[in-house]
């Protein structure tokens, strides 16, 4: 919410074709302008690097690349030579030709790049004409209203003065839309005619949740909005401030609060919401759209790109838990009556070992040189299951080292305790596995014989809570005697009513969706 600031059209450009005396000096001007534009772009990139993730910083890398493009330079030089004209006119003509072709391809992603070219072309022309872009000066925090705004303009304004951005052109894949989202600035793009009705200084409200722009809001609406904003601000600022510290009770018991993740976005949230580490990385979520078995390099590059967002913490990574409930084109799996009890997770993983488990295990082992990786094995039903997977991981470890891909040390390998047969008999496992994580959702459905995807019976699940807590307690006692850690990563982990119990039995970690972390940490700090 804030006053509108109408962004005036930029310094209008006059690009006139004129005869020049020396082609060579015009080419020199051009080369010089390209270098200056590159330096300016690098400068903006440096300024933004702290507020953006690697993915978004790539926008500036793309700009640099265009400015360094050999064909762009070559074409412009040729244009100057054949027309004996000024460099700014040549830049204008050549870039216009590119944007025309790119826009003609009818691909929104490519069109967005055409917008980048228009902006960079402007930048080059201004440099060649020795002119400067009008500086955008905001005296009070405002909502910027414009036909369109370029990433460079956006980068030049003090972020504390931008309350929001509304534009008449553009779509969600625009660099501006991506940047404003990353910077946490509410924005609405592509509003068309609505923009023309806004007067400079008039009050606007951007409702991001509904993607609506409210012009001239009523007093009643404003009061309501103000209360909501105030409350949200207070809560989130307290939460965010505290969530990056450890969660320790008043009497000094500490517990790790980790995040459940399945994507790049999730890990960014995990970091910003103050997770201590990653307690459960559901790797299968990375490959639901894949058209073929992900190979070792695909596993490696996807995990690497995700983990490096939050690198210096413990990463507990669960091996693929696909089942017949997730139809995958590359898995020729037959439909099963009860997919939750069927050929899923490691059972499926061993069926297609070379294509499914082997590349993942090898990728994780290689990544363990860079990150603190803990491998979590799902759906372990028996001692036999456990021996089989552990031996395979050790085998792949030795194999990699034989191939002279040196893996520093074997990562910790743990069991996802989710099948009653394992939960009831910790004695064997606590001696042989490195750590444990209770998957309470599956454990509940197996204990209650109630399908958790079936609404008519899922009310049974919550009634298993007492039994599960007893199982966790017994397991934890024995595991701690062997010096092994136990965590909880199902829904119970974020159940506030169970917190005191978990603290009491000295559970080592709880893992939950990132957004719940600040609240749970807060709860723990208020526990004696």
């Amino acid at each position, binding site marked *: 919410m804030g006053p509108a600031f109408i962004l005036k059209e930029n310094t209008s450009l006059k690009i006139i074709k004129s005869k020049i005396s020396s082609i060579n000096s015009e080419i020199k001007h051009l080369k010089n302008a390209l270098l200056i534009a590159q330096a300016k772009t690098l400068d903006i990139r440096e300024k933004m690097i702290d507020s953006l993730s690697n993915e978004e910083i790539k926008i500036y890398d793309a700009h640099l690349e265009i400015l360094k*493009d050999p064909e762009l330079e070559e074409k412009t030089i040729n244009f100057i030579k054949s027309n004996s004209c000024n460099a700014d006119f040549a830049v204008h003509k050549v870039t216009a030709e590119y944007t025309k072709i*790119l826009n003609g391809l009818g691909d929104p992603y490519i069109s967005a790049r055409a917008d980048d070219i228009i902006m960079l072309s402007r930048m080059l022309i201004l440099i060649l004409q020795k002119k400067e872009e009008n500086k955008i000066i905001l005296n009070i925090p405002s909502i910027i209203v414009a036909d369109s705004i370029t990433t460079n303009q956006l980068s030049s304004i003090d972020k504390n003065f931008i309350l929001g951005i509304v534009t008449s052109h553009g779509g969600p894949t625009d660099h501006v839309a991506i940047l404003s989202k990353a910077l946490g600035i509410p924005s609405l793009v592509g509003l068309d005619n609505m923009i023309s009705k806004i007067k400079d200084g008039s009050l606007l409200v951007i409702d991001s949740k509904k993607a609506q722009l409210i012009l001239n809001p009523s007093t009643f609406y404003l009061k309501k909005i103000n209360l909501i904003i105030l409350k949200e601000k207070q809560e989130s600022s307290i939460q965010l401030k505290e969530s990056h510290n450890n969660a320790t009770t008043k009497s000094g018991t500490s517990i790790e609060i980790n995040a459940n993740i399945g994507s790049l976005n999730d890990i960014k949230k995990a970091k910003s919401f103050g997770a201590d580490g990653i307690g459960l990385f559901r790797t299968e979520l990375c490959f639901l759209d894949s058209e073929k078995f992900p190979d070792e390099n695909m596993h490696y590059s996807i995990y690497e790109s995700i983990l490096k967002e939050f690198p210096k913490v413990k990463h507990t990574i669960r091996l693929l838990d696909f089942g017949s409930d997730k139809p995958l084109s590359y898995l020729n799996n037959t439909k099963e009556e009860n997919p939750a009890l069927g050929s899923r997770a490691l059972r499926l993983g061993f069926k297609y070992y070379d294509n499914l488990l082997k590349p993942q295990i090898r990728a994780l082992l290689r990544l363990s040189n860079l990150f603190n990786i803990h491998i979590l094995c799902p759906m372990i039903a028996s001692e036999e299951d456990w021996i089989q997977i552990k031996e395979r991981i050790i085998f792949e470890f030795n194999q990699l080292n034989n191939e002279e891909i040196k893996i520093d040390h074997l990562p910790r390998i743990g069991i996802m305790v989710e099948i009653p047969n394992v939960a009831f008999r910790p004695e064997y496992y606590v001696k042989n596995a490195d750590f444990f994580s209770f998957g309470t959702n599956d454990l509940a459905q197996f204990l209650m014989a109630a399908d958790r995807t079936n609404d008519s019976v899922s009310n049974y699940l919550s009634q298993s809570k007492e039994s599960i807590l007893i199982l966790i307690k017994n397991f934890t006692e024995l595991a701690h005697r062997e010096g092994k850690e136990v965590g909880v990563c199902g829904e119970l982990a974020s159940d506030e009513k169970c917190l005191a119990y978990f603290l009491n039995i000295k559970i080592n970690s709880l893992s939950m969706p990132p957004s719940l972390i600040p609240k749970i940490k807060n709860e723990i700090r208020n526990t004696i």
Partner: protein
Amino acid sequence: MIEKIIEIKDKIGFHARTSSLFAKKASTFQAEIFIEFNDKKGNGKSTLSLMTLGVKSQDVIKICANGTDEIEALESLEELIKNNFKS
């Protein structure tokens, strides 16, 4: 000069990211690299040029390389395409 015909398996084709990866790889070679597609010819070392070709998934392109390291260049670019632009 040597040339090779190859199918683009990447889901989208030559868009901004893949063009850039291709151009970067191509630029590491001394040889001149050209892409022919639909009667158009693009400079393999230029991201902009590659984007303007409008190559989509499943399209078949011809890569031409001309220079002392043309064999290596072609092999390495072919591999890049086959790996869906993951190097």
